[in-house]
């Protein structure tokens, strides 16, 4: 298994500002994922972040809005840029350890409210 922490756990931000969310894992992992869960909705994948390469974004998500860093095998950041109230969501990090069985472990999430 993998233990994942996220910072901050929650934040309230003003529109037009940016917030960087950190995801830390207690072991080296190949694949890290960032999801968004808007109020009352399911999880939607934003991007896949692999170390040493550019993040791969899903349809509807762009790098300018959600820049991602993956400097090493245990850490990643997601920035929500130029925020608007529509960005109010829970943002989750997940990882897939090197077990080869496709199981993903999720962080506790970051609850973002944009005023």
């Amino acid at each position, binding site marked *: 298994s993998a233990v994942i922490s996220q910072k901050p756990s929650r934040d309230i931000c003003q529109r037009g500002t940016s917030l960087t969310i950190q995801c830390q894992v207690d072991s080296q992992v190949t*694949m890290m*994922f960032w999801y968004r869960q808007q109020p009352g*909705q*399911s*999880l*939607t*994948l934003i991007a*896949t972040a692999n170390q040493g390469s550019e993040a*791969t974004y*899903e349809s509807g998500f762009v790098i300018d809005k959600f820049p991602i860093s993956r400097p090493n095998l245990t850490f990643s950041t997601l920035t929500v840029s130029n925020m608007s109230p529509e960005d109010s969501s829970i943002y*989750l990090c*997940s990882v*897939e350890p090197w077990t080869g069985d*496709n*199981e*993903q*472990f*999720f*962080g*506790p*999430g970051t609850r973002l409210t944009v005023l």
Partner: protein
Amino acid sequence: AQRVTQPEKLLSVFKGAPVELKCNYSYSGSPELFWYVQYSRQRLQLLLRHISRESIKGFTADLNKGETSFHQKKPFAQEEDSAMYYCALSGGATNKLIFGTGTLLAVQP
């Protein structure tokens, strides 16, 4: 298109009653199906996966390729089963997960 459908947003049952949480999927290849669960104030965690064919906390799930379904069942619900359940699909080389909208299971005493 890849899609996961959970037709029920809320399922309320009494303790001891059988439970069936429904999941249908749309995928052109051979997907891997999962059930994730989120208990109150806890993080999302894996409950079942179709390739392991095991029973976790009394829940079992069968992949029916003909009906493109992955329903999970438990013969006797317990109050501690109350949680949000998400069906998810993974396919292709990226292993990304596609989630359904979730079903909130409420087990009444």
